[in-house]
């Protein structure tokens, strides 16, 4: 048996096969070849293999879910048979370049053609061209497909995982995460928590290959990762895992109950979500609403901006799922730390203090307005509130309200139905907390983002592993900023909630209640835990 230690992200236990997630950063090189006939042969062979794969996918999907879903693979296959596409590839091969480069050239040319079309549906077809071209390039270069290739659910093991990698993964195939790097506040950690999966970060493991496919145990209570434990220990861990599952079941009993203390004080407990499907988890956990719907998933893991229509469909489906429960959507919160190439953001020495979130939105209103239009159009289908991240001044809020006004005017002129929409801000900078008295006059609610508020107040980078001890989330300065923000909100008759990680910290539940916090928004997996803490008071 091998034993590793790391930082635990969620107190839970997972047992299963280890799957080593290999990075797929393949860059196509442009190489001149002496033998263009040989390259043509390579391309022709790869093309055949790709078409066989696509036929297989078509048949499989047809048998399992029907023609409508299978058709896409048939279309992909036809794209590979398209005369113009093949002419472009063959043209580059004729010039004496390698097959990978030839396919990439055709991919770029035709993806560009679709991307420039007026029709949103057709613009989205650029993704099909890229998808199918990448399939051929992967075959040429002999690299396996992206994603988790294991059949059953596995413990995903990797050096580090980017947000775009984790969003793309199929949740049903993941038992737990184990990474070599990352802190307990990293994106992987936050994601694991939202998915209620045990995760161990910062393990320092380098020899993934040796453990790939073996049985592993992630012990989130002890912060340990066991590879091929002896039978006796394995049995013990299985017993403890069953115990953990039983405890979770006990929390289930709290479903449908109020979040009210013994002496009658009440608080809303909402859920944070990062994807449309997460709304199911929030409902499953009996959350009173969505207190933070991170909209970044729409922007990450893709090559171009999401269209208004795509966004509208996503927001609308969450609102429809949630019925009459409130959904607070946070507008785009992206900066140089989240890699989205098509934003063309410059490298920054200090992205946390840089060009990000509302700063980008106010500087590039076309991006902002597309998102706002989608949200306001979706507002006809449920109870929506919008909050804006990284606000530091009243003038920003005034500018935001002007843009919102414009968007509403345009939409109503176009005849779109809209519902009532509350506008709020994230209080996540010390500046916003300190001027919360003035800001409260401009908005309908505050949501305190404790993750950023902590890092900006304590001048501690939350991704820096060496500073975890300094990153004291219970620091009196932070609690004081929260207290004054809530007080200032109530003076103006607006509500104030907390949506950062701290909201789920049950050591502070009493403190938050005594400050008069109106709402706590936590990961779906913590909703019942927080309800229990409230009811135990």
């Amino acid at each position, binding site marked *: 048996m091998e034993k590793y230690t790391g930082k635990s992200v969620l107190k839970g236990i997972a047992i299963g096969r280890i799957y080593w997630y290999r990075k797929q950063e393949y860059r196509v090189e442009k190489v001149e070849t002496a033998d263009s006939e040989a390259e043509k042969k390579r391309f022709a062979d790869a093309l055949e293999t790709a078409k066989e794969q696509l036929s297989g996918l078509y048949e499989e999907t047809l048998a399992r879910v029907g023609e409508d879903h299978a058709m896409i693979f048939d279309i992909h296959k036809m794209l590979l048979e398209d005369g113009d596409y093949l002419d472009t590839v063959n043209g580059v091969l004729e010039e004496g370049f390698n097959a990978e480069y030839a396919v990439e050239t055709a991919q770029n040319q035709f993806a560009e053609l679709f991307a420039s079309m007026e*029709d949103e549906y057709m613009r989205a077809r650029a993704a099909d061209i890229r998808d199918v071209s990448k399939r051929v390039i992967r075959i040429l270069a002999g690299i396996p497909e992206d994603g988790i290739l294991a059949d059953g659910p596995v413990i995903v093991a990797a050096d580090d995982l980017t947000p775009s990698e984790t969003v793309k993964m199929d949740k049903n195939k993941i038992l737990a995460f184990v990474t070599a790097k990352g802190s307990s506040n990293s994106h992987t950690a936050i994601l694991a928590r939202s998915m209620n999966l045990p995760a161990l970060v910062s393990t320092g493991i380098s020899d993934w290959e040796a453990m790939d496919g073996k049985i592993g145990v992630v012990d989130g209570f002890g912060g340990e990762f066991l590879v091929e434990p002896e039978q006796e220990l394995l049995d013990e861990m299985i017993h403890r895992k069953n115990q953990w599952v039983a405890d979770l079941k006990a929390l289930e009993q709290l479903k449908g109950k109020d979040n009210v203390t013994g002496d009658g004080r009440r608080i809303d407990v909402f859920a944070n979500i990062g994807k449309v499907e997460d709304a199911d988890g929030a409902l499953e956990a009996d959350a009173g609403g969505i207190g933070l719907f991170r909209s970044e998933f729409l922007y990450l893991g893709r090559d171009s901006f999401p269209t208004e229509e795509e966004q509208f469909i996503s927001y609308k489906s969450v609102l429809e799922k949630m019925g009459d429960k409130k959904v607070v959507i946070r507008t785009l919160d992206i900066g140089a730390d989240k890699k989205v190439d098509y934003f063309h953001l410059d490298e920054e020495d200090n992205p946390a203090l840089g060009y990000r979130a509302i700063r980008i939105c106010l500087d590039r209103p076309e991006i902002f307005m597309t998102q706002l239009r989608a949200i306001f159009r979706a507002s006809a289908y449920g109870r929506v509130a919008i909050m804006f991240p990284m606000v530091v001044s009243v003038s920003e809020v005034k500018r935001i309200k002007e843009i919102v006004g414009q968007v509403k005017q345009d939409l109503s002129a176009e005849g779109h139905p809209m519902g009532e929409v509350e506008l709020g801000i994230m209080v996540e900078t010390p500046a916003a907390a300190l001027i919360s008295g003035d800001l409260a006059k401009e908005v309908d609610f505050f949501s305190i983002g404790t993750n950023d508020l902590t890092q900006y107040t304590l001048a501690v980078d939350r991704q820096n592993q060496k500073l975890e001890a300094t990153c004291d989330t219970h620091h009196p300065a932070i609690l004081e900023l929260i207290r004054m923000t809530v007080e200032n909100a109530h003076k103006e008759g607006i509500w104030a909630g907390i949506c950062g990680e701290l909201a789920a910290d049950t050591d502070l539940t009493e403190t938050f209640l005594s400050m008069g916090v109106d709402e706590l928004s936590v990961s779906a997996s913590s909703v019942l835990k927080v309800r229990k803490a409230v009811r135990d008071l």
Partner: protein
Amino acid sequence: MKEFEFTVKDPVGLHARPAGLLVKEAAKFGSSITVSGNGKSADAKKLIQLMSLGIKQGMTVSCRMEGEDEEAACAAMQEFLEGNL
């Protein structure tokens, strides 16, 4: 040469699925088949060209067949477009 006009009734227009089926239908004939609309023309046997016409609901497209089996091709294309778009 044979030619006919057709107005698209499908709400999504000439999207991937009917375009794919149209290519398959057109490929059965030796004649050259050209679809024109939205100010552009496309070879009906080439999927990317067809899709990039950007034909939407309500637009009128013209379909032109030229070759030895143009009669049969015309009848088949007419039937296909009526049935699928």
